[in-house]
């Protein structure tokens, strides 16, 4: 409790009257005023941080819940959890710190940083103010964030470098996205991926005007802007005409594997005036380690391999294997969320449907970019909400099978992270 809901003594007779009426009127479902009921703490060294969001029409905040085990048990938001201020939040863990970012409606928002104390409880370290950004990713010991213009009158993207030791911005800069695109439209970065000592920023080309902000007349190309780091000077733009743009709005499509090769996933969802306009299917391409060109010999057509499905988003497990979210091509949309799951093996160019998950039609909501991958890269934990409730499923990558685990009551799971306790 940040402010305790207890009457002050000086509130005189008015207060007494108030208390009287309150005592008459309080219902059982008013949240009781109690201290955190957690008498004994095991000597936990790590905890999963589950972000949950109650489904409601208004007054919605995220709650951070902690759990020791994702494979069983129950956690609830009822009278439990650290309330997060603001509706739209994104979470990222880096250097064993948990960052809770407010998407501040175009305004700066507070980013709250937590770590796990020796008792295994979330401890707020600090707040700092951040811009509203559309892409953020760990790079070295930093978080690199970009705020990207969607207006051709102000064709600039701003980047910010956050030092995760001090929790302060240490550098920032500006990128002219009209010059970068060079085709009359603006470049809009889908996400940020560190590749050795550089950062790769795949982008889509957007009109940024004319009531069709995210429409484009260049739907059939992929681009990656390559910047050196930390100077953020543009080295080159890599292009490929075999796919549409890589990644999606607010979604990563570029991954570096353990061998240093880079795999690019295109959803093939470029639009114009509200209709799909790309002729290129959802596909995987590659940039070989040490090169800054697409590998002309590598191409994997997802839509052909699955007979009519495309990838909406993905989580990299390891060893060339991704957990991918799939959706029928007929339902293609730039912001759609796939509800069928598969394991994509980019080495084998194979895609396997995952068994043991709820039917796509019954899924109400699912976690997207904030899934948790076990240290060995063999298990991916995802959150799925169906009409029957919200559960964490653990997906065994090798067998492409899923098992239902932890139940989260009173909220949909928006992210799964893990922290080690600090001493």
């Amino acid at each position, binding site marked *: 409790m940040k402010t305790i809901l207890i009457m002050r003594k000086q509130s005189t007779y008015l207060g007494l009257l108030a208390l009287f009426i309150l005592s008459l009127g309080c219902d059982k479902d008013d949240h009781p005023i109690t201290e955190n009921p957690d008498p004994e703490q095991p000597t936990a060294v790590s905890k999963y941080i589950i972000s949950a969001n109650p*489904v409601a029409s208004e007054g919605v905040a995220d709650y951070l819940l902690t759990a020791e085990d994702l494979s069983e048990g129950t956690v609830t*938001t009822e009278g439990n959890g650290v309330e997060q201020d603001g509706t739209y939040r994104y979470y990222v863990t880096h250097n064993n710190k948990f960052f809770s970012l407010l998407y501040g409606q175009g305004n700066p928002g507070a980013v709250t940083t937590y770590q796990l104390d020796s008792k295994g409880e979330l401890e707020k370290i600090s707040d700092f103010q951040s811009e509203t950004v559309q892409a953020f990713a760990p790079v070295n010991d930093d978080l690199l964030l970009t705020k990207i213009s969607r207006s051709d009158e102000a064709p600039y993207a701003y980047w910010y470098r956050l030092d995760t030791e001090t929790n302060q911005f240490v550098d920032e800069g500006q990128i002219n996205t009209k010059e970068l695109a060079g085709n009359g439209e603006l470049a809009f970065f889908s996400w940020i991926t560190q590749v050795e000592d550089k950062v790769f920023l795949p982008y889509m080309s957007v009109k940024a005007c004319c009531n069709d902000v995210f429409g484009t007349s260049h739907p059939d190309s992929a681009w990656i802007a390559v910047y050196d780091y930390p100077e953020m000077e543009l080295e080159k733009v890599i292009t490929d005409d075999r796919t549409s743009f890589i990644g999606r709005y607010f979604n990563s499509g570029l991954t570096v594997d353990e061998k240093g090769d880079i795999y690019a996933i295109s959803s093939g969802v470029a639009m114009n005036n509200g209709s799909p306009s790309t002729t290129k299917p959802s596909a995987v391409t590659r940039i070989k380690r040490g090169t800054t060109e697409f590998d002309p010999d590598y191409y994997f057509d997802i839509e052909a391999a699955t007979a009519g499905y495309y990838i909406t988003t993905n989580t990299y497990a390891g060893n060339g294997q991704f957990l991918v979210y799939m959706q029928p091509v007929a339902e293609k949309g730039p912001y759609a969320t796939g509800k069928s799951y598969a394991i994509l093996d980019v080495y084998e160019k194979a895609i396997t449907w995952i068994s043991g998950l709820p039917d796509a039609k019954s899924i109400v909501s699912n976690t997207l970019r904030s899934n948790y991958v076990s240290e060995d890269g063999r298990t991916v934990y995802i959150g799925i909400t169906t009409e029957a409730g919200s559960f964490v499923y653990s997906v065994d990558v090798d067998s492409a099978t899923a098992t239902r685990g932890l139940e989260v009551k009173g909220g949909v799971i928006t992210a799964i992270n893990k922290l080690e306790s600090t001493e």
Partner: protein
Amino acid sequence: MKKDIPGIRFFVLCTLLVLICGSLSAQVQKTTISGTVYDVQGSAIIGATIKVQNQNTGTTSDVKGQYSLELPQPGTVVLEISYLGYEVQQKKIQVGSGQTAKLDFTLKESAYALDGITISGKTALRSVKEKAFNVQVVDALQLHNTTLDIGHALDRISGVRVRENGGVGSQMNVSLNGFRGKQVRFFIDGIPMDNFGSSFQLNNIPINLAQRIEVYKGVVPVGLGADALGGAVNIITRPQTQNSLEASYSYGSFNTHRFNIYALFTGENGFFAKINAFANYSDNNYKVEVDAADINTGAYYPKQNLERFHNTYHNESIIASVGVRDKWFADELALEWTAGQNYKEIQTGARIVSVFGGWHRRGNILMPAITYRKKNFILENLDFRLNGHYNLGSEQNIDTLHRRYNWFGQYKEYPNAGGERSYSTYKYGNNNGLVVANLNYKLNETHSVALSNTTNTFNRKGSDALDPNNEIYEQPRITLKNISGLGYQFSPGPWNSSLFIKNYYQQNKFAQSYNPSGNYGDVAYRNNTNDFNSVGYGVAVSRFFTENLQVKASFEKSYRMPETGELFGDLINLRGNTDLQPEQSFNYNLGASYWWTFRDHHNINFNTNVFYRDAMDFIRPRLDKNQTMQIMENLGSVINKGLEAEIRYHHLQNIRMGVNITYQDLRNNTRYEQGQTIQSAVYKDRIPNMPFLYGNADATYTFHDIWRKDHQLSIGYNGLYVHAFYLYWPSRGSDKLSIPSQISHDLNVTFTFANKMQWILECKNLLDKKRFDNFSLQKPGRSFSAKIKYTFY
């Protein structure tokens, strides 16, 4: 004891009005009697009835106890004067042609305080309270010696919470028994205030404009032809009876200036002219406690006490009217012109963390209006009223500094064109028109029928000089709204009942964009039309069980049509949603009032009310897809059960005090959220970010004749309590954000010199407590103000 019948009261009141009007219309040459009515202590008696015996002439004494009566012809007359609780007095006087005679009265208290006199002695205030509807009345005259605006006067009523974002001119949102925003409708003299723009709003109209403010809770009478979901507020302006000229000016903390001048001229042949001009200015640079971020590193300096630096507000408005009264063709025919402008700097977004240094808004109002009233219109006992206005004003949003500010007032400037939130100089006019017509037919003393119709038009046109070719600004945004109501009033004996039916109609014309060819860049617009038609109904009943005890019950099925702002956006922070459907509510009220007088002059009035609201398709805000603006949507349903109570006491003209309290149990009644078959985790949870327990206490003591006969001093206190509430759903989480309990104490001292000049000193939030409102935005701390008011005549 004489049986007191509400119907007769009303009849007598009406008759009295007709008598007054009749006497005024008959005048040829002015023969006047004027004077003051005092009690034995020498205090003015307000609302005493002065009647000329055997003539149809009469009046009532005003707030200073003064009256002025014009006689149809010179000669000797007998004046009869009466007031509730006082003995009737008669005095003979001779008045020559064109003369003005002066005649003061001192009334003795009646041994049988309530005997017989109630019929004529009742104030307008009490007769409103006695209506069958659940209505509460603020006597604005008593607040004229404060620096309040109308919005803040409402804050003192049980069941009402005025929520605002900051100081003078800040956005104000009134919540009434759990309904809020546009769900509560506002009227001036029965005319909806929907179209007035930002230059004429509750928080910039001085209290001096009003005579009283009526607050209808839950059930709204037909005469106020509106689609209110949860109630209505009707501001009754001061009656135009005699020449007057008064001016007031106040200066206070945060460089706040308020100026008001009121002038009324009544000439020959019923001609009158009126001017009400007011201006407010404030730097609003009060301090707030914020976590201020470094402009470059983002690091917070926690709990800094910093001045708001971009918060200036000013508005200037003038309402001028000319007309005639008491003609054969009209009881009143008036033409009115409202002109005004306002300027407002925007310091923060919805939350205190987002801070701006250049973004501002301007607005103006240019509104001609016409009023026509006629009793016995065509038929005997048929009263007709017609009002119309058209607002030619415009609003502009100016955001042209491409900067990022922090709370220290530092900023980063970006090289290219842009804005702090969105680059804009968009200017638009809503071209609102309104016609209200009311017919009231009194069949006899127990039966009457009322018919009312309100038509509202809206046609937004605008452009942005920064983007002159944007076709979207050319598209239609047109609304036609029509609310008609039929009411029947039946008042047998101690009963007073009202039965009504209302028809709500709205037609919206708007454009949807589409691509006609499928080719790149082609955008065309296709016009759409939506029509809604719904029928609501209600009943209100009251009964006097004894002379002093009244019980009221009312029910209404009410609708509210979506506002034009909700449909088409305000192009600032609210995105339009043309898919909105009307929201509806079943409202139930049960209340009782008790008046008690003991030991002659100790008067106690007790009011209590329980209410129940069952609302569906609630129109509520959520963030839009781009998360840059709010959008209104039909979301879920709520149930509100509540209780409010008020006790008021007054003794003669010396002591007035009261306390009120409201508890409302506003619960989420949406059992299944969209796409869910399991019960919502917040089903039956208390709606968050809404105060649910709050109250007011006030007391005034007046010393009469403090050093001279007509010098008086009064000391007033007002206290406000709001119980703590949660920002988000109460049942969720253990480490929660809340808005703490708030208590504030205001004091004021008023000196009145010879009923001419008043000096008022006021201190608000005496203990300098932190006060918060919407989403924990901080309000001003302790402030002082001084006001001088001079009444020329």
